[in-house]
């Protein structure tokens, strides 16, 4: 009769200490690398996203190597023991660790597929903000209100993620201005055009042009500017700068805001919704 028993390796105090030590070293190493790369990236201007791009990959590689080292050199498992461990691990996932495991797999998918990167502005579920970190379990976002949101990585499988800049530091901003139907639309468009192109936050190139559009509605006209901000961190400043300077110029040139009658307001809301 062949002996089918699998002997589990002896895990003594020395092994546990070594195990903790390896995890601790990996963690500290990641912290140092993260700090250094973030520090460098913040000093290279618009290339910062490129520098930060390598962070998740480094994290997963270091943790992966640490796990490999623990299994092969510290615990010294053989293939049969690994199979047994796999079975136990599967059972653990079934019992309650499935969310954690889904997060880790989500993290690996994010690292390889790059639907977004550290530094991007993304909308994930109900949250919008700049990705400050992609970890093993979660992605951290800094919202415009400076809240730190941890979104679990598995959301990548269940929710659509919109990245506004997709790895570049410039980002398209859409600015709407509403004017009265009686105001001169040509002059208004000229003012908005010049307001966008003279903003201190604008970025224009052959691949990043700006557009000014006009649309007529029953009781007002909408001017829409589509232009790139030079750094996504100035998204709201850019919008505010263009709006402020445009309205200042509008008021000096007799261009007025829509004169909404309370009875008409409901109609306008319906039009907007459609």
């Amino acid at each position: 009769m062949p002996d089918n028993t699998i002997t589990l390796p002896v895990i003594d105090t020395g092994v546990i200490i070594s195990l903790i030590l390896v995890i601790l070293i990996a963690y500290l190493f990641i912290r140092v690398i993260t700090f250094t790369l973030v520090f460098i990236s913040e000093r290279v201007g618009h290339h910062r996203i490129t520098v930060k791009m390598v962070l998740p990959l480094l994290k997963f590689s270091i943790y992966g190597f640490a796990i490999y080292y623990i299994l092969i050199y510290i615990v010294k498992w053989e293939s049969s023991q690994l199979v047994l461990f796999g079975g136990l691990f599967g059972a653990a996932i079934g019992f309650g660790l499935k969310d954690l495991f889904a997060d880790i797999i989500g993290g690996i998918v994010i690292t390889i597929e790059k639907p977004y990167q550290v530094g991007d502005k993304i909308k994930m579920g109900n949250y919008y903000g700049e990705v400050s970190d992609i970890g093993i379990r979660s992605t951290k976002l800094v919202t415009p209100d400076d809240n730190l949101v941890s979104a679990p990585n598995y959301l990548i499988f269940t929710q659509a993620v919109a990245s506004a800049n997709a790895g570049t530091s410039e980002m398209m901003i859409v600015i709407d201005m509403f004017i009265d139907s009686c105001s001169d639309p040509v002059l208004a468009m000229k003012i908005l055009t010049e307001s966008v192109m003279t903003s201190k936050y604008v970025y224009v190139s052959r691949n990043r042009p700006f557009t000014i559009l006009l649309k007529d509605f029953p009781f007002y006209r909408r001017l829409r500017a589509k232009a790139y901000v030079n750094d996504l961190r100035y998204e709201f400043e850019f919008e505010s700068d263009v709006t402020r300077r445009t309205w200042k110029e509008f008021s000096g040139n007799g261009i007025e805001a829509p004169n909404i009658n309370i009875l008409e307001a409901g109609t306008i809301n319906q039009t907007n919704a459609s």
Partner: protein
Amino acid sequence: MVNEKIDISDEIIGFQEEILNIQTAIAEFESGHNLNVAIISEPYAGRTTLLNEIEKMNLHKIIRFSFSSIVKNKDEIILPYQSKRIVLIDDCQFLFMRKIGGFEVLEHFLNSTAAPDKMFITTWNFYSWKYLDEVMKIGKFFPVQINLPKFTAGQIKDSILSGYKKEEIEFVEDVEFEKERIINFKKYPVAIKPWNKKINLPYIRIDYSGLKFRLSKKEKRATIEDIIFEKIHNVSNGNPGVAKIIWLRSLKYPIIKPSRIKDESLNIELDYNESFVLNIILSMKSIKNEEISEITGLDFEVDKIIFQLSKQGLILTGDCSCTIKPEALKGIIEFLKKLRMVW
């Protein structure tokens, strides 16, 4: 095509190809094809020198104008050039202001360049041109665009030494320069917000010209003269105007030593509005304080910003105007590129 032989003076250094292109465009214009020319370069890179040479070569055909401050009224550019068909205009960046309503004069000028019986040879600050070409596509009005190249160390040497007699200048190899370290440890100040403190993080800086010197000395190739001009070339980033200023600053007539040529690396710390004002000054090279206020609006205080820029050694002030400090040009461009203010 024009096949006439074009004579170019040997006196001017470094722009032979550019002069040839401009002279070809002039010859084409005379045979019936209008090709307006835009000469584009960084501040101090030799636009005016090139324009002087073109004027000298075509003295009887040309009329020349220069703008020294921003032109605010389009009537100011109704130029009395009826008699001559080729018009040279220096510093065309003064034809616009980066503000709402600041492009009327430029638009008027661009429309007048479309006249078939006139040829316009214009010079532009590189950063103003780049901005205007992206936002207004002004390149369409100037089929011949000449970007002035950076000078090599040899060209800088020829250009500077052309002002002196042979062996008038003594190039002295000094001990101080030999002692200068190739690898230097510098300190970078980092603010730690929670404690409101600053710490100095060490970083390594390599002196490439010193390294080159040591290597070439081992090979016994480079003379001290070559080393000096190589260093000036590195510090000026190949800009002939800046190189000349560095030369004059380092020369203790008639002696020049390598250790006197200092690469003053700038540690620029500016907020966004200060950087924007610096960008405006760079795009114009020189601008009046009141014009900066007009461009930026009244939402931030220009005097404070100018003081800050001056304190950091980035601009020169005087006579209610600001000018980019030549020695700081390289650092300023790197800084503004990082912020994506210059494209």
